[in-house]
């Protein structure tokens, strides 16, 4: 079995050390960075995402595949060309101001990382100012906000309003959480609403035209 296929299988099986070892070996034996990135890491995560969507595998499987993929990615990054870098979109994520419920947010962050995005997790109880500031600092593509409480979901509107006020039109806002809905998303003028972690990934891809 070729080394690229071995890395691919390690990512699918969620074997972090094997995936990292495979990438190291691949790099030292002169395999192209693009070849490892596309044909091993990303295509493996595509299959993992597909299996998860079909209900064949479960959340912990996806998480460990994502970890294996990240381990490989960390080793590849120093070798990235400008072309590679532009490929991974950046996402700022956190829970809404006043909300410390982060199970959903953590799950979304892991799923997005697993899908190959660069995720900056600001944690819980994040102010609108902090979301915007970090998005500017990283030149991010998307701000993703999660809320469990009806009392905190209104701060999502503040983020949208602040972006408008500062004329920062390049940042898209993705929202999610139990009390939210498509209607609320439209009402506050956010760009997309994800019903669960699986859909969050789909919506990010749609927002980025991927």
């Amino acid at each position, binding site marked *: 079995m070729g080394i690229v296929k071995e890395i691919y299988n390690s990512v699918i099986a969620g074997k972090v050390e094997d995936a990292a070892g495979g990438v190291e070996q691949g790099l030292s034996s002169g395999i192209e960075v693009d070849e490892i990135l596309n044909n091993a890491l990303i295509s493996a995560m595509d299959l993992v995402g597909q299996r998860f969507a079909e209900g064949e595998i479960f959340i912990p499987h996806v998480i*460990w595949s994502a*970890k294996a993929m990240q381990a490989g990615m960390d080793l590849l990054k120093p070798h990235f060309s400008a072309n590679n870098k532009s490929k991974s979109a950046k996402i700022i994520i956190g829970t809404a101001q006043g909300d410390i419920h982060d199970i959903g947010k953590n799950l979304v962050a*892991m799923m997005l990382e697993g899908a190959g995005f660069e995720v900056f997790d600001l944690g819980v109880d994040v102010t609108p100012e902090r979301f915007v500031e970090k998005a500017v600092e990283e030149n991010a593509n998307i701000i993703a906000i999660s809320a469990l409480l009806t009392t905190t979901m209104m701060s999502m509107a503040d983020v949208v309003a602040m972006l408008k006020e500062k004329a920062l039109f390049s940042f898209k806002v993705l929202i999610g959480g*139990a009390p939210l809905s498509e209607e609320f998303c439209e009402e506050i003028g956010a760009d997309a609403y994800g019903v669960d972690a699986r859909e969050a990934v789909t919506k990010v891809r749609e927002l980025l035209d991927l």
Partner: protein
Amino acid sequence: METDIFNHCLPRFRLLDDSQIRRIHHSVLRVLDEVGVRIHHNEALDLLASHGARIISDNVVQIPSFLVEDAIASTPANLVIYNRDRDPVMELGGGRIYFGTGTDLPKTVDLKTREIRDTMAEDIVVSTIISDAMPNIDFIGSYGLPKDVRPGLHYIRCFQLETENSNKPIFFTAESKEDLAVIWEMAVSIAGNSEALARHPFLINYSEPTSPLTHSTEAIAKLIFCAKNQIPVNYTPALLAGSTGPVTLAGALVVAVAEALSGLVVHQLTNKGAPIITGVAATTLDMLEATVSYTSPEYRLTHSAYADLFHYYDLPIWGTAGCSDSQFPDLQTGAEYAFTLLNAALDGTNLIHDCGYLGQGFVASPELIIFANEIIDMVKRYMQGFVIDTDHLAFEVVKRVGPGGNFLEDEHTRDFFMEEHWRPTLFNRKNLPNWIRSGKKTVNDKLIDKAREILKSHQPEPLPHELKKDLDKIWDDAKKKKRR
């Protein structure tokens, strides 16, 4: 290195304490010795009399305690049932639980039209294929009673259709010794010869005494036929508290157990060590509707009580669960299925029949076999309890993840979630938006979809062509004989 003593908690339930078991047992012995049972079968009466029982009058025989104790002692405590390939598939004994359908439902809720209509031979094929596909259905009853096959032949036809459509053991009824003999002939032809069938039985006859305290000619004839030919037989009364038995549960239980054990005595005197499964059904007569409740809480109490009693006897035990008094699949069905299935599992009865029943034993609705399968799956997970050791107490994991951390990402979660957590295959766990998007399907919709899918795609292990021909010939001969 720390070592853990194996520590696993398991749900367990016992209704009677030891002194209550003995009190009930002594009452049973007293009823048999001082009241006796009526047996409409001369050979059985002679047999009992020659072993020390007293025939007092009018076919009533009083059975002394030692005959009962001897019969309990000579009955095999563990009965292995095979499929027709001679693989052992059920070990009836101890607290081991196995589930299957019942027999003889005259009406069927049509899968397509949802009308309640007469059951037909084709319905036997449908329920057998569905049962064959269900991993938690261990044995197969006819489920329906086909209207399009004439009496005297319908049980033969049911047995034939069941063997043609499943390799699972068959739990079958017979009208009399005559059709039982034809069914046995079919089974012998599948096994090769009668010794091979006795060695690896894949069928269980289901016969009943008649409450109160009566054994009909046909019931005893079937019981003796099974004993002589080593066909496992399930000989169990169905008593109605307040009608065919005392209204009080303790009294009803005593009478029903006396009926079962008097059958056991005849069976063991006929052929010591022959295989038999025993137990009782002691439920209530509904005093307004005059119907038989299959799910009354009183039934569950007598079920738990006789389970304790027959565990004390150390005999293979029959059980009843997964049935409903409702006439149509509805919320009542769900409540009664779940209640009875959990109860039967906790009782540790071995051969648990009637999964998929509706309408107090009158109505079939084949998708409910799939419903019972799902609930049994849930019950089995519950019955597994959980492990309490270092790995499962997970102190190191708690320390590693810490306050505010995320256990979902930890390798401990990855390593244990599959074995610790059960997931439904049909019951909904989708959130509201996803459920709406996927078509707002209730479990009722999904059960019907699943039944149709199974009927389209499931391929039971076929009966070899030669055997199928043998069975066809036996069936044709039986039809000719009946016509004469």
